[in-house]
């Protein structure tokens, strides 16, 4: 961390500090108001009725029975559903996916909404929903990766990965001295944020206020406005706290639209909150993948070809194909490189972005395949990766904006104690006779930027106000962004007011792609800098100021004062400057985005290396990850504590992916039979023993003015493969699907 502190004065004293989350106390004391904590007067409770078939039509709903239940106010079905201005089956803008809002009686997947019940209490609405007792004309659902013939998606846009080829694939295969051809599968996974989707909708004329967890607060105004036929400015979104999002809260779903519609229909505020099992359906998920990887190497262990094909499930009515094969772009210096994608349409909801979309399953398969190749070649897996270290982006030849991956490998390996690992599996045991295995994987995640704006105001009392509509999903945006903002104004944290989380503020861009700190932070930095520039103009142009004549570039802001750059004794406080100038607030505006030229000039990624130790009972095959060391280089670290937590969270997600998470469909009905957290396992504390994160120093002068890359998703990549490889190393059994479970190893025994 000492490197980071050394950097900090460049921007002031706030960035680089491990400040504790500003929302932490509110959350643990229960005072944080999440969307569903709002109870406006006259509130009606909405509960949606989930389809219990996956394909067919609804033939009957017992509306009379539901309406007769005490407390039930209204039942909305396709028969009486008021019109929407925007068609739920249209795709009018980016991030628009088709959804079900009772446009007809067709069932496209299990758990889709087929009716909405409104009642005076949640209990009455729940019972009303049960009493509807739907009857169906059901058809046999198409399930799984073999559920239908594969198709090649049109490329371009979210969920539409194409085929990317660099070099001559056939020549690469032909030139190989050794090769592997392996196929890995990953299951359907559901986001399952702690806070399920919720909305409290209140109409006032043709203006609607939505308390709703949102990862795209300003952007979603336009989206909601579209479906209700009102301009974006007539939609107010309040999203001060999110209990996790993982991608699902950037995309509109049917139940939310129905609740908002119900509020307009009844003229009363309406609240809807999904139950846990309803999270397994209308709000996206990660599709299953089947990935074939062919790797060829020459006699010097250099990759002649990396050929990655992925087949992923999507829905019958919209396309989101997990871009898993793209994980093989940008990482290893293969002579020829291909990433190809296909989809298969099945009777499930449309997938969507789930934390590390594409990268998570893609990296899992790639890093295991790399391990298989290394073993076949008879060399250490880390050495194999170093052999194929890419100095420029493979295929494109672009220079990296920065790449401290070598340091990640070195520091991670040293901390883990990788040296001396036997190449062959099943060589190590602990004092209890447990099989011990070590595996590793490379972590990689692109460092994109979206577009954001921000506003910064200096007040006559010398304090600052900064605003941008950022989303704090628990990752700590509220804290890290305030640190950047305070630095840009040369103020300590306790002298700025940071406003965020509502749509009447400047657009902070989408909180996704691990780009929120870089994007919103960039805008805040620009806004603060702009405010200071204006303040400096006032001071340096005023003969009464000690800074008179210093020139704009000749002053710096520090601790609430402007100082002459060349003479620290010449200084004046913000308050004095503003007061003497008449007391009007000084406003700065800023924006951030990445130009096309910047994107073209460099390849930009965060990197990392993950090392895993697992223990496996030699007879009973229960598996436990006993150590995980991840070393990550992600540009400038604004808040080491938050960064470490994000990376740890990602690595724990990796354990989850490797050993636990899986939606289990009943193939006959198309329904998910483990749609609750008792059955859909994620790790518990006892599953996470030795977890260590190292942040490796990295200066990046190109990625953006602040030098920030992202840390939100990269922790998953590398980790899954490292665990899979460690299990193989412990047992000698190579399991080529996730999650890896006891029966898989038992069969191999």
């Amino acid at each position, binding site marked *: 961390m000492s490197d980071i502190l050394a950097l900090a004065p460049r921007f002031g004293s706030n960035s680089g500090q491990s400040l504790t989350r500003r929302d932490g106390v509110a959350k643990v004391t229960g005072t944080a108001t999440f969307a569903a904590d709002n109870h406006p007067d006259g509130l009606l409770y909405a509960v949606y009725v989930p389809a*219990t078939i996956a394909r067919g039509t609804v033939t009957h709903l017992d509306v009379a029975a539901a309406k007769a239940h*005490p407390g039930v106010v209204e039942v909305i079905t396709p028969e009486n559903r008021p019109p929407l201005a925007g068609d739920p089956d249209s795709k009018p803008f980016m991030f628009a996916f088709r959804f079900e809002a009772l446009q007809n009686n067709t069932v496209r997947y299990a758990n889709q909404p087929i009716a909405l019940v409104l009642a005076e209490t949640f*209990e009455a609405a*729940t*019972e009303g929903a*049960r009493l509807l007792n739907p009857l169906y004309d059901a058809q046999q659902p198409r399930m799984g990766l073999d559920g239908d013939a594969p198709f090649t998606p049109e490329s371009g846009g979210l969920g539409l990965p194409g085929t990317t080829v660099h070099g001559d694939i056939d020549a690469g295969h032909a030139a190989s001295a050794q090769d592997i051809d392996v196929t890995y599968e990953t299951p359907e996974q559901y986001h399952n944020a702690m806070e399920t989707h919720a909305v409290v909708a209140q109409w006032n004329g043709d203006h609607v206020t939505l308390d709703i967890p949102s990862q795209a607060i300003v952007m979603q105004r336009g989206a909601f406005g579209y479906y209700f036929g009102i301009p974006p400015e007539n939609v107010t979104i309040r999203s001060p706290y999110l209990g996790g999002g993982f991608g699902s809260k950037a995309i509109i779903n049917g139940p939310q639209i129905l609740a908002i519609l119900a509020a307009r229909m009844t003229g009363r505020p309406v609240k809807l909150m999904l139950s846990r*099992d309803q999270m397994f359906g209308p709000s996206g998920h990660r599709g299953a993948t089947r990935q074939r990887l062919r790797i060829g190497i020459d006699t010097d262990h250099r990759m002649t070809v990396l050929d990655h094909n992925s087949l992923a499930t999507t829905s019958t009515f919209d396309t989101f194909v997990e871009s898993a094969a793209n994980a093989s772009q940008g990482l290893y210096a293969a002579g020829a490189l291909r990433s190809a994608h296909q989809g298969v349409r099945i009777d499930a909801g449309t997938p969507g972005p789930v934390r590390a979309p594409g990268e998570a399953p893609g990296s899992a398969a790639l890093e295991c395949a790399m391990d298989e190749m290394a073993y076949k070649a008879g060399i250490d897996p880390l050495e194999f990766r170093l052999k194929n270290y890419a100095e420029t982006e493979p295929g494109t030849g672009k220079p990296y904006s920065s790449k401290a991956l070598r340091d990640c490998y070195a520091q991670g390996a040293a901390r883990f104690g990788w040296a001396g690992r036997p190449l062959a599996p099943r060589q190590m045991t602990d004092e*209890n*006779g*447990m099989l011990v295995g070590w595996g590793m994987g490379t972590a990689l995640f692109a460092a994109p930027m979206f577009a954001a704006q921000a506003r910064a105001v200096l007040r006559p009392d010398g304090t600052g106000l900064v605003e941008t509509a950022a989303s704090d999903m628990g990752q700590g945006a509220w804290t890290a962004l305030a640190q950047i903002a305070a630095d840009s104004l040369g103020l300590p944290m306790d002298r700025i007011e940071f406003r965020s989380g509502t749509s009447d503020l400047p657009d902070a861009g989408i909180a996704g792609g691990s780009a929120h700190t870089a994007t919103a932070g960039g805008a805040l930095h620009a806004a603060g800098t702009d405010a200071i520039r204006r303040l400096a103009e006032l001071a340096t142009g005023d003969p009464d100021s000690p800074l008179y004549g210093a020139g704009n570039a000749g002053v710096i802001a520090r601790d609430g004062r402007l100082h002459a750059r060349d003479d620290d004794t010449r200084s004046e406080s913000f308050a004095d400057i503003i007061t003497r100038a008449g007391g009007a607030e000084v406003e700065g505006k800023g924006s951030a985005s990445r130009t096309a030229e910047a994107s073209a000039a460099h390849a930009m990624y965060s990197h990392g290396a993950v090392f895993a130790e697992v*223990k496996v*009972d030699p*007879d*009973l*095959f*229960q598996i*436990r990850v006993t150590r995980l060391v991840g070393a990550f280089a992600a540009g400038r670290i604004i808040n080491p504590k938050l960064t470490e937590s994000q990376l740890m969270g990602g690595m724990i997600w990796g354990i989850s992916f490797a*050993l*636990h998470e899986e939606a*289990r*469909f*009943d*193939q*006959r*009905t198309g*329904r998910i*039979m*483990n749609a609750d957290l*008792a*059955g859909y*396992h994620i*790790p*518990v*504390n*006892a*599953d996470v023993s030795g977890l260590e994160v190292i942040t490796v120093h990295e200066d990046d002068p190109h990625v953006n003015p602040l030098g920030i890359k992202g840390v939100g998703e990269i922790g998953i990549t590398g980790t899954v493969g490292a665990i899979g490889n460690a299990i193989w190393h412990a047992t000698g059994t190579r399991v080529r699907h996730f999650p890896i*479970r*006891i*029966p898989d190893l*038992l*069969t191999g025994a």
Partner: protein
Amino acid sequence: MNLFDYLRPASVSDAIAAWQPGAAYLGGGTNLVDLMKTGALQPGKVIDIARLPGLDRIESLPDGGTRIGALVKNSVLAGDPDFAAAFPMIAEALASGASGQLRNAATLGGNLMQRTRCVYFQDPHSACNRRESGNGCGALGGDTQNHAVLGWNDACIATNPSDLCVPLAALDAVVETQGPNGRRDIAFADFHRLPGDTPERETALEPGELILAVRLSSNAAASYQNSRYLKLRERTSFAFALVSAAAALQLKDGRITEARLAIGGVAAKPWRVPAAEALMLGQPPDTDLFRRAAAVALEDATPSGNNGYKIDLARRIAARSLALAAAGTPTRMPALPASVFGESAHV
């Protein structure tokens, strides 16, 4: 959830008098309320027994036995030092179940009566003979990874999920009950039922019958130095067993004088096979002997779906738990109870 009447009677007899068809007793509620929320169970009347007086005690009986009231919380029983010393594998089984919060709420009676974790039972939209006799079995031919390999028939392939019940079965506990027809004792072996022709009847309890206590004899405590409960699960904690086993031995002069073995997660009740136990009598403890005993215990096993793995796994865990029992009860509760990753999980 449906509307229902809620009652909190003052005494056991009031509770029983209040019972009528369609009513349910409420203990800690950790199982019943979940099932009411999914709609799998819809009692018209909920009789809250959690505060009935006198049922929350752990008593030593004049004959050397132990009597545990039906309302003793799972965490209290597991944490009682005298009880844990006498019946270490029961304490370990309890401590390995669910989570801390759930164990603080869950009662002894509720644990004995907890319903199967068959997901088709929990889901009111699936057919299930247990929820409604003659309805059909939704699990058969579906996702059956957690289902039975012993004692099942086409009417029902569910397993009993309780950890606690496995050592109770091994130790021949007795269930004390009171019902509309008075009080009686039920041997643990008769308490849970295999599906047979009446899959909807999971236990020997008659309608309205209430569990008052569970009794353990002094002989059940005699194996305290050589007993062990072991549980295989996909997470290190907070997961039901795929398979589990409770083993208790008495040893004299290097030979086994009494052997008890019950296997969990394989049938609608904890599985005990007298022949497997008899085979060990008079023999010196030995891995090979334990393997043979385990093989006999699983002799009749057949998969009821995609769960054949359980047969092999159950054999392995039975043999391991016997070996661990022979090696001696751990001197204190392992940090990861009943886990192969706990201390003293190896021989």
